[in-house]
């Protein structure tokens, strides 16, 4: 690194002050979640003040109202299953299409067909999909997972196919000479070598599915199953004007992903940047 360049302190301070734009809404969420309805005032100082006491009562109540643990369980189940299956299936597809493309035109056409799916908005698929999944008995959590696997396929196949350029053919040829099948070569040699891309795909897929409202909204409606965002939407009316209860619930919905972000911040930022550069 070049040591001769001085730290730009003015800019540093401006950027630190700018984080208020990020923290302010979160700060409001926290203090409102801890306040009692009687503490809600209409003046600025009162609205920004700390709650009189830090009690977890609102959270306890919000958990009951929104059936928090079940919604959290559903969100975790859907997101984790989607990530695992996406990494397994999309890497395999990306490998096959990437290698096939180099030799055959038909794979090139298949690649373009799948990747062009990126431009298909959910709105056009939504209404027919609701009917179709219902007919196929997929109007449930499994259906949501399956749809995510299809919706994220264009982006993930694009990422994996692009990454194949970094994996030398020589390794596969050597394995082939040793008598390993293509199937085995992929799982034993190529798949482990794709791990930087696995991280990117897992993170991008996770952020998208965890926060998604529309797919569970149309597929899971009427099943009594909620994901975390969907629970916020469905129980919105039950909060009524009790903003404290509502905000406790919002905060509960935000905490899991915030904790995950704090733990894996570096990987997430690298993953997102990596995805953008390759994409």
């Amino acid at each position, binding site marked *: 690194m070049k040591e001769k*360049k*001085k*730290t*730009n302190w003015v*800019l540093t301070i*401006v*950027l*630190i002050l700018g*984080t208020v*734009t*990020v923290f302010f*809404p979160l700060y*409001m969420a926290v203090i409102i979640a801890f306040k009692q309805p009687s503490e809600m005032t*209409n*003046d*600025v100082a009162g*609205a920004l003040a700390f709650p009189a006491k830090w009690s977890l009562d609102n959270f306890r109540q919000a958990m009951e109202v929104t059936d928090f643990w079940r919604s959290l369980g559903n969100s975790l189940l859907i997101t984790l299953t989607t990530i695992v299956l996406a990494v397994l299936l999309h890497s395999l597809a990306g490998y*096959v*299409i990437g290698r*096939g493309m180099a030799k055959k035109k038909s*794979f090139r056409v*298949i690649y373009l*067909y*799948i990747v062009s*799916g990126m431009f298909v*908005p*959910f*709105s*056009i*698929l939504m*209404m027919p*999909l609701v009917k*179709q999944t219902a007919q196929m008995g997929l109007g449930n959590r499994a259906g949501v997972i*399956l749809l995510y*696997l*299809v*919706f994220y*396929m264009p982006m993930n196949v694009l990422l994996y196919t692009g990454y194949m350029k970094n994996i030398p053919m020589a390794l596969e040829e050597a394995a*082939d000479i040793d008598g390993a099948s*293509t199937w085995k070569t992929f799982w034993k040699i190529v798949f482990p070598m794709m791990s930087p891309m696995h991280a990117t795909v897992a993170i991008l897929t996770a952020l998208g599915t*965890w*926060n998604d*409202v*529309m797919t569970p909204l*149309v597929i899971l409606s009427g099943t009594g199953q909620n994901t975390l965002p969907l629970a*916020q*939407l469905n129980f*919105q009316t039950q909060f009524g004007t009790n903003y404290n209860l509502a*905000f406790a619930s*919002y905060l509960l*919905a*935000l905490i899991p*992903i*915030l904790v995950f*972000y704090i733990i894996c*911040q570096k990987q997430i*930022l690298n993953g*997102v*940047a990596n995805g*953008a550069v390759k994409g």
Partner: protein
Amino acid sequence: MKRKMANREKTFWAVTIPVLILFFTFNTLPMIKGVIYSFTNYRGYGTYDYVGFRNYMDLFTDARVGKSYLFTFKYALAGTVLVNVISLIMALGLNSQIRFKSALRGIYFVPNILGGLVIGYIFSFIFTYILPAVGDMFGIGFLQNSILASEKYAWIGVLIVGVWQAVAMNTIIYISGLQTVPQDVYEASMLDGASKWKEFWKVTLPLVLPFVTINLVLSTKNFLMVFDQIVSLTKGGPAQSTESISYLIYKNGMDGGQFGFQSANAVIFFLVIVAISIFQMTVMNKKEEQL
């Protein structure tokens, strides 16, 4: 050797065919069905007839659809411009000689990981209770009532939330773009005595132009498809002034008995998105080639 390569190809097809079937069944097939429904008067239940292009004709005269296109385009245009300008400035700042660089980058990315729906609810409270309180305190007239309740300003509320979240993502992309610019390019421009301002326009911007393309296409597409923020902030109101195309298709297509009509709307919407994306990529590619 020949036999082995044939086996390899067999495995390739054994993987590709199921993947293609899966993709076709849940992406292409519903899209084809959507196109077919768009030629019917289907309400979402009961029987229906084919009505030819009537839905498409009606789309162009339907005031509510027209209004939703106007809102969505206004929102997407303002959002895309704001997000790209702000993110580029943020990225320049976060990529310069500052302290706490990684911590600051980490903090500025937080809005992107949070769900649009819940963030919308939080901002909705801020717009409805905090901003009017600030307006009262300082006597700022237009803030004294919730901007979300105003037909004229509600879209700005939605815009603020959309931009707040999108800037986080685009900043990261611009930072990775700026990191591809080799340091000696800056040193050369410094030796030439170029001002910082000139250096940005003549050196930095042309070199990160591919990233501008990515960001323009990404943010336009995301802004055009806005849904979560509408649900949590305005539900399309007041007086349908913030009804986005996605929201209208969802609302009237799913519960409004306009399955066929909104399918036609969705088909047009899809064509619009494709056309805009292709247009952006062609124009930007030309710009990149010129340099």
